[in-house]
């Protein structure tokens, strides 16, 4: 598929294309509906580019191989859905701990357990934030169109490389399997970020030493730096420690390197917000319908605003506090039993009421469901 040409593309394929555009050359995965097309696409495309595709024995092995390739020097990715994402959790935590840049795609389906393999859901939103044990700060992006999926996948890689951390792309069955006409940008059109490399002599290198922005340069394997990576809490050299000040230093670093850069990471789309009294907050495939509803409501003279969380984690606290300052009602629409709504409740002023619009039967909201909810709130 040449860039520039308008073509019919599936969301999962746009994700694969975006990853390759961002420089992903290593993919390890395990088949699972509704994400499998990403693996199939990588199996076809990566060997042509001198990259590597491997179908591992399970999802635990997949994320392990991805982290192995990432620390050895590659941009690496895996894609899965709920059950596989659950299996990956321990090693996603390992990636947070050793600060390995990598990208995990979760094409969400209904859960818990095997759930609804072929039906849409957004019920892994909180798992992305809290799925692995321990304290850490997560980054997750949530595209809403096929075109978005391409550019947000590039952004996910850029964030992973910039902040040396795993980044989750939250897709869902609808966006993953949906096909739209898109034309991909030419190479060079979109910014691609690469991790910084150490410039010091190997003997002076500290894998996790003090830095201005909390992110350390990361050497390629085989160049003499011989750093030690461990899931054990470690000191500036990467060696295990249980000294209280070093433990606190490490955990603070994991948090600060993301929270201090919220404005750089968080992306929020806001429409019709100037005088909005009722605000629709959504993310992922749901946002398209929400935007139309805001537009329709405005046409009918009802002051409805629209906010789309393009970055779900870290939760865009500052931007949302500012945007929701004057709202009377906030309707948080999600395809789950109410997950991100709790984050919204935590940040609104006392004069703002927060409502949930929920659906968890395996389908997306219709415009009528949104309109009915707004009516209910207005009464």
């Amino acid at each position, binding site marked *: 598929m040449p860039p520039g040409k308008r073509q019919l593309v599936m969301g999962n394929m746009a994700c694969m294309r975006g990853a390759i555009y961002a420089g992903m050359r290593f993919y390890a995965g395990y088949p699972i509906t509704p994400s499998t097309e990403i693996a199939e696409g990588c199996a076809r495309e990566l060997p042509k580019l001198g990259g590597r595709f491997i179908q591992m024995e399970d999802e635990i092995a997949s994320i392990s191989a991805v982290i192995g390739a990432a620390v050895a020097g590659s941009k690496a990715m895996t894609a899965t859905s709920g059950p596989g994402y659950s299996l990956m959790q321990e*090693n996603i935590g390992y990636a947070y701990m050793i600060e390995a840049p990598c990208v995990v795609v979760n094409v969400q389906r209904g859960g818990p357990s095997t759930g609804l393999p072929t039906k849409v859901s957004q019920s892994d939103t909180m798992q992305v934030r809290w799925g692995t044990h321990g304290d850490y700060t997560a980054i997750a992006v949530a595209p809403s169109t096929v075109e978005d999926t391409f550019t947000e996948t590039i952004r996910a890689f850029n964030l992973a490389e910039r902040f040396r951390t795993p980044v989750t792309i939250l897709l869902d069955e609808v966006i993953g399997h949906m096909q739209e006409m898109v034309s991909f940008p030419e190479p060079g059109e979109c910014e691609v970020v690469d991790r910084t490399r150490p410039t010091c002599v190997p003997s002076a290198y500290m894998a996790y030493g003090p830095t201005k922005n909390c992110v350390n340069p990361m050497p390629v394997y085989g160049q003499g730096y011989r750093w030690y990576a461990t899931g054990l809490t470690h000191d500036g050299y990467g060696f295990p420690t249980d000294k209280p000040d070093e433990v606190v230093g490490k955990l603070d670093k994991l948090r600060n390197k993301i929270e201090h850069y919220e404005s750089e990471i968080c992306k929020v789309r806001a429409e019709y917000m100037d005088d909005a009294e009722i605000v629709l907050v959504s993310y992922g495939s749901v946002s398209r319908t929400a935007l139309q509803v805001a537009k329709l409501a405005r046409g009918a003279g009802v002051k409805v605003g629209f906010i789309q969380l393009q970055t779900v984690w870290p939760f865009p606290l500052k931007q949302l506090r500012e945007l929701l300052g004057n709202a009377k009602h906030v309707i948080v629409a999600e395809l789950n039993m109410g997950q991100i709504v709790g984050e919204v409740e935590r940040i609104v002023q006392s004069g703002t009421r927060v409502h949930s619009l929920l659906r968890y039967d395996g389908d997306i909201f219709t415009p009528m469901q949104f309109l009915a909810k707004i009516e209910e709130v207005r009464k």
Partner: protein
Amino acid sequence: MSIAAKEAGARQDSDVVLRYLRPHVKFPNMWCPGCGNGVVATSLIRAIDKLGIPRDNVVLVSGIGCSSRMPVYLDFQALHTTHGRALAFATGVKFSRPDLKVIVITGDGDCLSIGGNHLIHACRRNIDITTILINNYIYGMTGGQTSPTTPAGAHATTTPFGNTEKQFEACDLARGAGASFIARTTVYHTTQMDRLIMEAIQHRGFSLVEVISNCHTYYGRLNRVGQATQLLRMFQEKASTQPKDPNMVDEDSKDMIQTGIIHRDTEKTELCDEYQKLTDSLAKGKSS
């Protein structure tokens, strides 16, 4: 050999080992005095040194357990991963960077219990990774629980009345799964260990060296076998380069430890080579 010559040899040997230890790490190490893990570590160093492999090309990958702590002491690129997953991580390192020498350090619990699936699939792929499996028949780090290699009847803290389960033979398992180099030795047989590790590293394909080791702290104590020296003597007595008697007519044969190279297939194709051929042929197809 005179005593003076022996001492000079030992000094030379320890000079080699010292060159490969990490300058930032505090010694003594975390292992119990007399633990076989240190014996394996020094053997690995000697093997790499003798082979003349550039130090920066070596990557040590390990999981969780006493033996998996080895890479923290050795001054090579190191990836100390999660429990059981060392081979899966190593697969990512090796498959993305076939130019690196990837060596996995693992134990019987790490490799054969929680990591058993990754072991058989790494063997099946015949990916060029050398795995040193240090088998001490027990979980040491967590304090003496039964492992997949704990002998029938043997005591562990989770088999207080004797083990009622059957055991994995790691080498048989690897053979069945498709590994192309398989060897066994014990921590008593250090000269043989040096040679086997060297041969395993030189072998192109998946290589497994099972090193029978002593956990006198737990296995020795719980089974009243004794201290490190008694366990080493046991390894000395039971080791044989002859294969086991398949009919087990001889009672002693059951406990025998077959050492040396158990299986070697130099014809079997290796994963990274095969994939490289594929990428080369696709690139060629594009250019023509």
